[in-house]
């Protein structure tokens, strides 16, 4: 299955892109997305346990994802 991964702010700068697509095994969890992204060039600058969201809602690392989901890796927020 494929999932869309969104990166923002310092994490997008680190990876040199703000959006990518990953092929993952059925039953994969959000944490598996982080593992894959951290293996990419520049990915080691991301923390092992960043904030995560699935389809625009905060999600735990253990949440199971489905094909077509949008997974966001979220840097420390700084609104206001």
């Amino acid at each position, binding site marked *: 299955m494929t999932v869309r991964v*969104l990166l*923002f*702010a*310092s*994490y997008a*700068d*680190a990876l040199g892109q703000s959006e990518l697509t990953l092929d993952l095994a059925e039953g994969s969890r959000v944490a598996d997305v982080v593992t894959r992204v951290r293996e990419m060039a520049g990915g080691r*600058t*991301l*923390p092992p346990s960043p904030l995560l*969201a699935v389809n*625009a*809602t*905060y999600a735990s690392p253990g949440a199971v994802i489905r094909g077509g989901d949008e997974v*966001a890796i*979220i*840097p*420390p*927020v*700084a*609104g*206001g």
Partner: protein
Amino acid sequence: MSAARLTSEPVDVATLIRDVTADDRGAVSLFLGTVRNSNEGRDVNGIDYSAYDAMAVAEMNRIVDEATQRFEGVTILLTHRTGTLRVGDVSVAIACAHAHRSPALDANRYVIEQLKRRVPIWKREHYLDGTSEWVDPSGRPAEVAQ
């Protein structure tokens, strides 16, 4: 009536106050966040705000919903700006109206504190010396310099 939105346009505070005001609401509280000219000893001349737009709007609406449940009868208008702001520009505006002052004030405090904790918005500060950095309020060193 309560609502949250993101905008790349300057925040029209007068309209926000007008829209939240009503004859049966005897108290209106207004919070404005503005771009400060310094941060941690460095002279700031502007901030670029960016957001995960869909989630930021959803999360801001969740916060507004929570506040309207906690402070029954309050009406809340929340606007957060994105894009390039200069010193003094309004980055966030929260207007809360209620029949009485306490819920109007308390709801405002609730919304800004939750927003700073949860809403996926980021800021890159630009300094007078020509450098810029992503702001990390968690206190950790920035993951990526420049």
